[in-house]
């Protein structure tokens, strides 16, 4: 008699215990309960990168800037990025401050890739100086080379219409919405067509570096505008 009762009760108890543990496990699975301790830090501290640039003399030899110019450049650079390198986010932020009306993130992305010559995701002061050295003190050939490199997104040596369209859209994005005359949807595309008509000599749908340099050298406006920023520093 007693054993019968205990049996039924025992079974019931076991059943109930099983149900409880199962429900607890279910809650744990759902993430409502956490049994383990919080040992894993969710936020990995960003490894603060401290980058020290090469010596002043070395940079002076490599670039076409004087010591004083390099000093001024570095002071501005370090002021904005105390860690010594610029990552893409910071770059985009800085660049967007110059173009408040539009969205300059896409163009800043392309620009970042153009400056980040070793493609390590950050622009150090050396990259910065080398880029500026070409842009401000280089020969026209070098500048055009740099521009070609900017347009050639996948760096395969050819500018296709799609790449140019991306670049063009990025530039037009920087204008923003409130322009005069009103920006039409196909304005970038039309611009790309004009560009290709001018640059693509053999009409094969891509622009190579030679075609690019040749066409640019023929255009007076472009040649003149290349000299525009000589006295920036």
């Amino acid at each position, binding site marked *: 008699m007693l054993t019968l009762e205990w049996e039924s*009760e025992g079974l019931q108890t076991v059943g109930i215990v099983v149900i409880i543990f199962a429900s607890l496990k279910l809650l744990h699975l759902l993430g409502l309960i956490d049994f383990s301790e919080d040992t894993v830090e969710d936020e990995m501290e960003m490894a603060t990168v401290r980058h020290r640039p090469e010596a002043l003399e070395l940079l002076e030899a490599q670039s076409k800037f004087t010591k004083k110019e390099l000093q001024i450049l570095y002071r501005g650079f370090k002021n904005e990025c105390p860690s010594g390198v610029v990552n893409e986010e910071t770059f985009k932020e800085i660049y967007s401050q110059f173009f408040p009306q539009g969205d300059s993130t896409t163009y800043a992305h392309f620009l970042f890739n153009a400056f980040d010559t070793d493609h390590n995701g950050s622009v150090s002061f050396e990259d910065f100086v080398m880029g500026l050295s070409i*842009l401000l003190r280089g020969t026209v050939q070098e500048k055009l080379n740099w521009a070609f490199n900017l347009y050639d997104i996948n760096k395969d040596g050819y500018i296709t219409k799609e790449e140019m369209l991306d670049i063009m859209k990025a530039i037009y994005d920087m204008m923003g*919405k409130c*322009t*005069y*005359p009103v920006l039409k949807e196909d304005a970038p595309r039309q611009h790309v067509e004009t560009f290709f008509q001018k640059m693509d000599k053999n009409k094969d749908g891509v622009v190579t570096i030679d075609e690019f340099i040749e066409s640019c050298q023929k255009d007076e406006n472009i040649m003149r*505008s*290349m000299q525009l920023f000589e006295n920036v520093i």
Partner: protein
Amino acid sequence: MAAGVAAWLPFARAAAIGWMPVANCPMPLAPTEKNKRQDELIILNVSGRRFQTWRTTLERYPDTLLGSTEKEFFFNEDTKEYFFDRDPEVFRCILNFYRTGKLHYPRYECISAYDEELAFYGILPEIIGDCCYEEYKDRKRENAERLMDDNDSENNQEGSMPSLSFRQTMWRAFENPHTSTLALVFYYVTGFFIAVSVITNVVETVPCGTVPGNKELPCGERYAVAFFCLDTACVMIFTVEYLLRLFAAPSRYRFIRSVMSIIDVVAIMPYYIGLVMTNNEDVSGAFVTLRVFRVFRIFKFSRHSQGLRILGYTLKSCASELGFLLFSLTMAIIIFATVMFYAEKGSSASKFTSIPASFWYTIVTMTTLGYGDMVPKTIAGKIFGSICSLSGVLVIALPVPVIVSNFSRIYHQNQRADKRRAQKKARLARIRVAKTGSSNAYLHSKRNGLLNEALELTGSTEDEQHMAKGTSLIESQHHHLLHCLEKTTNHEFIDEQLFEQNCMESSMQNYPSSRSPSLSSHHGLTTSCCSRRNKKTTHLPNSSVPATRLRSMQELSTIHIQCSEQPSLTTSRSSLNMKSDDGLRPNCKTAQITTAIISIPTPPALTPEGENRPPPSSPGHSTNISTTTTSNIVKVSAL
């Protein structure tokens, strides 16, 4: 534009070479640095402590004391340094503002001293960075409240009050009983009657005395008349009070909706309903229930007690926390009730007849009450019952202190969240203003810049100096950069309102086929609103004219510059007086460019005072001007 970012401007300009091969039209000339001098260190001596910085660092903010020529007043010739007889501690923060572009507020500083220093150096407190802005605002508000309190107590002591209307005095008397003795009397009388009414309600139900027939009568039925009279008196007082408050309330609608007035109404309603209703058997049941609402009179005490009000408010603000506690308790109750039910199912004569019936056991056990009317009999039931009571202790005892501290934390947090939200709007507005400010600065100086070139052509020099006054080199370089972008894409920057008007106009209007008739017909409108700060739609017809040329995406080889009235850039108010035509025509050397943006809201830093003058109202002389202007169209080849 932040100061630190100004250091990146050369980089952004160099990167603009990337636009050059793409552009179809020639780029504008770069601004030259007229007096490019070597950057020099300047020494700032603040009460003996010497700070040194580059001159260009200070020149980043030309509208402050240190950035402008105002600091020359403090130049000490003998020691060749700038001497300021001010606090050096605060100066540290101010100099850091020039260096980093962020103004910080040190917590140990007194708020009024800091404000004075900021005012001295010509820095607006709104520039304080987000990290310190909240603290600054808090301190400022505390200070303001303290000053206000001081002023109030002064006023009260003086006793001089402006004459208020009878209604306003009544409302003041109701809200602050301390203002006059009458108000105080009223306050105490109502308090007394509330107490009387509540006590009456309570005593009514006490059985007092027996009546032959072994029935204990409650006092309410024994002394029915007396209680009725008391009730009537109380209700009359409450009604009169409610009506008086309703009369005196500044906003009756809001008063009716307020909690206190609802309590008042609920408190006196049962009496009136009871008067109206007859002694019907069916209805009297409901009537009895209505009498329960008389207990709400006790809430009327909350007008008299500050503590009750605070408690009510904190409960309201902690509602979410309480709700969560309730939810977790409900979860636990349901779980344990289910467990207990199934555990006790086997035993005979078990009180746990259903799961809802087990709720009562669970609640009683978890709150450690333990009435004992329901007890488990099986082993499993007892095991789970003990688990239930143990967890009950935890579930209930733990959150209570947490809730108590949550009260204060959530209370403050709510206030801080509201503050932050309010500040967020202000912050976003500031950012927006800064953005529009910089783009407006560009639009404004673009006009100035083109004006400048036209002026150079026509040879008048006095306006040039006014133009050059406002823009620093960095600004002109930035504007040149934006100008290059415009040239690259063959589109121009305009401000939002013009853009919207353009959109509306273009949807309504067709482009005029011939240029000249539209020009002359719209000329009057343009010139009549010569103040380019007016964002009127009358500029639009004129702007649609060159639109036909621009929309063809040709190279801008020529820019038509038309003579019009004197632009309001000179500060002399006499020239702005539009009464005389004669005063205008000789001044018509300066140009207004039709292709450029015509009306721009001016940024505050750059505008001289006499900007927003009313447009000349008479159309008469505008036609005169139009006749002269059509003959003065100057074609300028693109730069």
